[in-house]
């Protein structure tokens, strides 16, 4: 009826070309690393100063000085490099990271993204999200199509404070792959068993099919 988290990750991974430099956001986007086609070499960037990030180590090999943006232990592939924070964000802000895949609270059909604060009375935290939104050549989003309460996360305009404006190029959800066009979302791929009517009714902006 819809794609599983692994299926979404595999679809997003299949869109990453050989040789790309890719930053994966915390949470669901991290899963994409498990589905890079084995015949492609992709170089993963971590904001805290790593290129060539490899998979999680075994518990015995965990090293708290080799962690990813989510502070979880990772490994380094041959060809990987360490560098400091200003250099790391020069890669991001300077347009050297080809693709970043982020999570979202809301995405608008004009490409606006909201993913850093729910605007409540909690402690706000932004991390590297705004730098990635501003700097990566192609910003992509992985998200469930709706909130836990069943409300659309794909909207005409974001209601939460924005992370970046007009920057999202593609959205991968459990229901579909879509592209913000400015005034609507263009459908690129529909999950099996999901009807156009169903998709439209759970999307807060027009959906174009061509």
């Amino acid at each position, binding site marked *: 009826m819809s794609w599983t988290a692994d299926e979404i990750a595999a679809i997003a991974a299949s869109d990453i070309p050989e040789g790309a430099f890719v930053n994966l956001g915390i949470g669901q986007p991290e899963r994409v690393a498990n589905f890079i086609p084995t015949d492609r070499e992709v170089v993963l960037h*971590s*904001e*805290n*100063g*790593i290129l060539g990030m490899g998979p999680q180590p075994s518990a015995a090999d965990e*090293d*708290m*000085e*080799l*962690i990813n943006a989510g*502070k979880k232990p990772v490994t*380094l592939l041959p060809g990987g490099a*360490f*560098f*400091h*924070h*200003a250099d*790391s*964000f020069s890669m*991001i*802000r300077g347009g050297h990271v080809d693709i970043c895949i982020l999570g979202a609270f809301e995405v608008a059909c004009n490409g606006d993204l909201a993913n850093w604060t729910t605007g409540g*009375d909690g*402690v*706000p*935290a*932004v*991390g*590297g*999200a*705004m*730098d990635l939104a*501003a*700097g990566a050549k192609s910003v992509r989003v992985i998200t469930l199509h709706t909130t836990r309460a069943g409300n659309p996360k794909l909207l005409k305009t974001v209601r939460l*404070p*924005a*992370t*970046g*404006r007009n920057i999202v190029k593609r959205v991968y959800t459990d229901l579909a792959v879509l592209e913000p066009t400015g005034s609507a979302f263009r459908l690129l791929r529909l999950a099996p068993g999901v009807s156009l009517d169903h998709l439209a009714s759970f999307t807060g902006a027009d959906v174009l099919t061509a």
Partner: protein
Amino acid sequence: MINKLTEDALSAVSAVQDGDTVLIGGFGEAGNPTELVHALIEQGARDLVVVNNNAGNGEIGLARLILKGRVRKLICSFPRSAHGHVFDDLYRAGRIQLELVPQGTLAERLRAGGAGIPAFFTPTAAGTDLANGKEVREFDGRDHVLEHAIRGDVALIKAEVADRWGNLIYRKAARNFGPVMAMAAKTTIAQVRRSVDLGAINPEQIVTPSIFVNRVVLVPTPVSERDHVLDKAA
């Protein structure tokens, strides 16, 4: 003879004044100069402005400094962590100020401080709430925000190896904010796991050259924050 090495963390931080801006290295627990922060707690300076990417873990290091009421304001990008109740509680009670800065802007503002650049334009945060009240200018058809340098009175950082001149190399992702904070402070104090003879670090491999370092404190076996925090939780 130049010799910046000492084993006395308390003396190394003795000149910190009330009201100082203190840059504290680290991302998550990698690169946290926990022993230097504990020395600063013992030293007693208060009303501090602290710059760190996060807001501390458990009740150790920066979290403990905050818990002791020594920090007036925190400048950081991500003041949330899996084990980070201390900052949360004070912030919700209105007892600590927060300046939230995108992580790359934070790193660049520190580098600018160290490089003699008082201000720069960046595309990061343009069009968002974090650009409110800031000067915006268009370059190449795109809005950019004017951001100002951050300079510290003191930087407390953690590196892996030092020599007596203060040349530093780091270990893996513990490098993070160390090099830019070392540049950005009037006085930079590094804790390191070990020291080597002058000339023993490959001059091609030195990450923070001696010119950016004032004092080096040997801490051969620093505490593991994770172990500490998990012990407390257990």
